[in-house]
């Protein structure tokens, strides 16, 4: 689960990280209120779960109270990459030119089977851009999952990355960030920029924090922070059913049993000359009702012009899949062509059920390629027709 900047900052503050003051505002008047309380200048920052807020005009320096109000009006309600800004964070402004901006972050790294701590003197930028252009400017260090990050290791990383300032305090900030990551099951935690002013003391100006969904059961307090309005409505519905679902920008709905087969299904749809509209993994052992819900979910997406179902039944029974699809047809939910490849357990029973229904909307094919080709053809024809 992704947290907002202000929420990530709250967590880091609880672990003793020196975080830039800030308050959340939901109306331009509230923005003015905070600006008055802090004294000027302030910065008004959109709170949305996407990167590149600054470039999109979602972060604005505000030298006066009136300007803060005006910027609040501009940013609140703004659309950034499809998400509406409902909240802003108002912080005291820092004279960036008087100090230095650095980057520190921790990420789950399968290559070292633990967290990797990353530090770079190229702060303030997207770390992906730094990694792409100048990978040598990012210092990486495996964090021991049993002992955690120790101060001498953090100092060593800071020195290698070329950090200047109070090294003990900078290392201490990294250690506390690491403690927060372990304690709160972070998948990713970043402080960027980590700003070091003329006094040499570090302060976290911006943060990113993402919590491991598998560990949410032990962070029930954070679950309350989840904002459904900040997520795609179909993704919310998918999470209710327990599906792994990602909205994509094509016209073929794709569903299958297992992340691997669904990823390969996306590849096959692309090869067939269409684009997937989504990734939907119904998981293992799905019964008819689950398949029914999956078909319902994908059918609701107006971008979807045809549905490609790719199942290799092990625990999952092909006849259950067929039953779910047929039920959706009978209930009038299924109005788009479904092209499927179902192999494995109870394949013959599934074929028999579909033969009985004999609807042109549901067709089964012997291979995933034929099913994907047909789904792609149907979807592209429908997309042409609707233009």
């Amino acid at each position, binding site marked *: 689960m992704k947290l907002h900047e202000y929420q990530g900052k709250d967590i880091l503050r609880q672990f003793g990280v020196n975080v830039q003051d800030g308050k959340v505002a939901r109306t331009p008047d509230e923005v003015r209120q905070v600006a008055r309380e802090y004294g000027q200048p302030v910065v008004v920052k959109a709170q949305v779960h996407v990167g590149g807020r600054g470039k999109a005009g979602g972060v604005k320096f505000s030298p006066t109270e009136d300007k803060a109000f005006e910027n609040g009006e501009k940013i609140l309600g703004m659309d950034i990459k499809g998400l509406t800004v409902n909240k802003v964070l108002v912080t005291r402004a820092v004279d960036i030119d008087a100090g230095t901006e650095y980057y520190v972050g921790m990420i789950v790294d399968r*290559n070292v089977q633990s967290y990797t701590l990353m530090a770079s003197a190229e702060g303030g930028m997207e770390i992906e851009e730094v990694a792409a252009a100048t990978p040598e400017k990012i210092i990486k260090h495996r964090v021991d999952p049993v002992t955690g990050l120790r101060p001498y290791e953090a100092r060593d990383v800071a020195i290698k990355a070329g950090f200047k300032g109070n090294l003990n305090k900078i290392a201490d900030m990294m250690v506390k960030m690491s403690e927060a990551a372990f304690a709160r099951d972070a998948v990713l935690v970043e402080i960027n920029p980590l700003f070091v002013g003329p006094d040499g003391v570090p302060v976290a100006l911006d943060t990113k924090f993402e919590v491991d969904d598998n*560990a949410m059961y032990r962070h029930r307090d954070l679950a309350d922070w989840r904002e459904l309005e900040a997520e795609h409505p179909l993704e919310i519905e998918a999470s209710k059913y327990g599906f792994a679902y990602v909205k994509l920008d094509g016209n073929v709905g794709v569903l299958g049993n*297992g992340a691997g*087969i669904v*990823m390969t299904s996306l590849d096959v749809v692309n090869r067939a000359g269409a684009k997937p509209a989504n*990734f939907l993994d119904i998981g*293992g052992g799905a019964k008819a009702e689950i398949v029914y819900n999956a078909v319902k979910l994908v059918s609701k997406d107006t971008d979807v012009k045809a549905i490609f179902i790719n199942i290799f039944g092990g625990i999952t029974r092909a006849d259950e899949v067929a039953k779910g699809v047929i039920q959706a047809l009978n209930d009038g939910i299924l109005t788009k062509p479904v092209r499927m490849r179902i192999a494995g357990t109870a394949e013959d029973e599934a074929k028999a059920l579909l033969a009985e229904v004999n609807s042109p909307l549901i067709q089964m094919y012997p291979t995933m390629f034929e099913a994907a080709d047909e789904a792609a053809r149907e979807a592209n024809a429908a997309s042409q027709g609707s233009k």
Partner: protein
Amino acid sequence: MGILVDKNSKVIVQGMTGREGASHSRAMKEFGTQVVAGVTPGKGGQDFEGWPVFNSVAEAKSATGANVSIIFVPPAGAADAVLEAAHAGIPLIILITEGVPTVDMMRAVQEVKALDEHSRAHGGEGVRLIGGNCPGLVTNAEAKVGIMPNKIYATPGRIGLISRSGTLTYEAAKLLNDAGMGTSTTVGIGGDPVIGTTFADVLPLFEADPDTDAVVVIGEIGGADEEAAAEYIKTSMKKPVVAFISGRSAPKGKRMGHAGAIIMGDVGTPESKLAAFQAANVPVADTMPEIIDLVKQALNK
């Protein structure tokens, strides 16, 4: 024959009395696996469908001489179950459970590796963890310690198979079967970001196995396991290897189900994996059926 498990393997099931544990214990028995006992804390002394149930792995091991454990314990207790088995001296542990918190896995994997080194340094046989979030492993017609469908592993074959994805493992095994080749051992290593055994850990076992002629590696985008595998193949492997990479068309930055399947910067891109396999002379199939052609070509060389 094959690697890691055979008809002599004695298997205990941690979490046997749960829904998944029970149904897969039955399926493993049907396959012919020697399932010798179950472990469910609090149910020790009971009988479960003819199997004795023990309160702890240590008790189960000393009573039965088990040398493999398969775990169906829910996520919150899964890492603990792994450590219990490892400390009880079970040399091969298979964690099926999906959704185990990553921090728990980091700690468990590190501890298992430390125990493994310690055991080997003192003349023991070591400790190996496979998974979590994996389908397990199966040596055709001998033993299945996992959740794969029994049917496609009924006849012996000579192709080793390693995969990060469960369903694609079945897909590949069936293709190899239908082509009349079949698999020796299939190892599902799991799709999570932190797992006990990687491609590069399994490849040496196949290289040393007299009953395996070639190996198929089913990888996916994200991580650098495929790159590490390619490096091992390049420097140390004589048997032919054929690869497939799933998710090559996936959009960058989106996480596709598995936490592992995400592209970070330039690491783990399909291009980097293709380049690594190319450098190791490993042909990469564009589609799954093409795997068969490539394996045939490799065997005829």
